[in-house]
């Protein structure tokens, strides 16, 4: 089967500082995977490379078999990859409804059209409504996104990410800064919306990671030191060392 994401020999340096140092990683389609690692390991940078926000210094990135190295974020998104951000990244002055609709428009083929009226685009409205239902934000549809509560904004962020129907989803710390009950809610949401899709997420909350992930990749100082099932990752002494300095049980 063609891998959903395939990184081969990816390097990234900012000036003299190498952040990503030769990452090879294969994400099989239809799996939920987590990318973990200590602070500063380069997890977000790796996300930014995969999604085209930063150019790679060397190496290739393939998305569903297609080489996407050096493409712009918008072009990579059109090939079926969508992402969320560590810091909430929404359209603050537009309504909740419009935020989701922005995520829908391109995928329905509206592109840069100035011949269609968005309010008459029933397919876009329908899809938006559906996503709003999933997010439990239908009642807040007319509220400007900038005034939502933090947890709602995080949910909206996931909503924009999945609205376009991309089949490869990258989530960057979707539960960061959330309370326990909010986290549970988001995990449930992620499980729902990534049904049958490929998910790669950066996450610090280990209970979320072990709850959701089929496989876990561990990134330490810009290198993937392990990529395996949760059970084996838990038992891996190198991972324990990276996290705790001494080989022990992972937190």
């Amino acid at each position, binding site marked *: 089967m063609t891998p959903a994401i395939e990184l081969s020999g990816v390097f990234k340096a900012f000036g003299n500082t190498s952040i990503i140092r030769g990452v090879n990683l294969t994400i099989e389609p239809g799996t939920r995977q987590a990318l973990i690692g200590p602070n500063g390991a380069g997890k977000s940078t790796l996300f930014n490379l995969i999604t085209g926000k930063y150019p790679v210094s060397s190496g290739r990135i393939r998305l569903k078999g297609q080489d996407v190295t050096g493409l712009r*974020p918008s072009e990579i998104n059109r090939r079926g990859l969508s992402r969320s951000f560590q810091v909430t990244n929404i359209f603050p002055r*537009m309504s909740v409804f419009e935020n989701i609709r922005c995520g829908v*428009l391109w995928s329905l083929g509206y592109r*840069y059209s100035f011949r269609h009226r968005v309010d008459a685009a029933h397919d876009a409205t329908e899809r938006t409504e559906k996503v709003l239902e999933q997010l439990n934000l239908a009642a807040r549809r007319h509220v400007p996104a900038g005034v939502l509560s933090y947890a709602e904004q995080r949910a909206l962020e996931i909503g924009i990410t999945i609205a376009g129907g991309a089949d490869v989803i990258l989530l960057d710390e979707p539960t960061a800064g959330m309370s326990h009950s909010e986290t549970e809610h988001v995990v449930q949401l992620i499980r729902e919306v990534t049904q049958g899709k490929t998910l790669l997420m950066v996450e610090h909350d280990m209970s979320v990671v072990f709850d959701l992930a089929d496989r876990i990749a561990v990134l330490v100082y810009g290198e993937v030191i392990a990529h395996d099932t949760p059970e084996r990752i838990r038992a891996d002494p190198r991972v324990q060392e990276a996290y705790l300095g001494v080989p022990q049980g992972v937190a």
Partner: protein
Amino acid sequence: MKAADAPTAARRLAVADVGRAGVLRGYGVWLTAAVVLIVLPWVVRTGAAVPIMNQMGIAIVFALSFNMLLGQGGMLSFGHAVYFGLGGFLAAHALNLAGRGTLYLPVPLLPLVGGLGGLAFAALFGTFSTSRAGTVFSMVSLAVAELMAASSLIFDRFFGGEEGITTNRAKAPLLLGLEFTRDRQVYYLIAFWVLLAAIAMYAFSRTPIGRMANAVRDNPERAEFVGYSQRWVRYISFCAAGFFAGIAGGLFALNYEILTAENMGLNASGVVLLMTFIGGIGSFVGPILGAIVFTFLQSMLSDYTGIWLLYLGILFLATVLFVPIGMAGVLMLHAPAWRARRVGRLAGPYLVAGVCGLVAAVGVIGLLEMLHALVAADTPSGVRRLFWTAVSLRSVLPWLVFTGLAAAGALGLRWAGPRAAAAFADANRAGAGR
């Protein structure tokens, strides 16, 4: 959930959003606008009314096109008059060609020529000006404006040097036997184009590209990650804005039958920025309001005082400092109170604050006018008529009176202002059923 926690912030954001101008939904508004435009010249019958309304119409189209950039696309241009002027010059030349019979072009279609001209140059200059947003965009727009100012000196034949390009709409062929010799005929032609352009620009804001212009304004990076190239979105908005600015320029050529390089200079670009901002960049009606009020003040004030530009500057300054949401924004803030039928409660406190403001304004204006009369030294008699009375510049009393009025008004405002604000907050309190 937390709906009640952030109503003020919500309102502030809501008025900033062009997309939710539900007021404009349906055709009723446009029909009303059409009727108003038709009857206006029969209702307002003072001598200068029709020429001023023509000027307003042109300003409305220009300001709306400017707000496609600033309000909807988040692009602050210091050179939008370039597309207005170039469209105008092309329209003037086209009209001259039509007058000589080289080109078949009936007068009513002239604004379209201006529009296409504006579009062509926006498509050209947009290739590099829209590659970046923010400060870079603003700086490039300034550079383009300078470039055109220099070009106007170099391409003498096209821009007509200091005299500019004159034209004559009476010489062009007729369409359906319509001729445009009298003011009122020109008024209806301009009104037609204003309505058409306004509808088109509103419709544009409701298309996928129009919505994505807002999205790119809010968060260009996020727009990229939902499949849209921020650069393309800006470029298309820029071209559309250039097109409508060109239409305004074409209307200008048609109305005044003369264009000079000044019409596309930095000054003209500044004026459209001022009127749009004063009206309010957050809603579709803002620029319309701004264009009407600004043009009105411009033509009225210049009859009464030599320092009218100073007053417009103060108005702009006050808008930026105290009400950056503009006039339309302030009006929309009152929408919830209006719907709850609680606007009546505001009348008293607003009236008191308004009177205080008026007193302060009279004081400040008196002082400014007296200073101006002294400095300009065009009053050898030492007497200047101010507020229907003769004021002697050389006596101390008027200075004291105006200073007193200014101070009293300011003190009154400090007292009445917070009360008006409190009344506003009270009228908007969520769920206040009293």
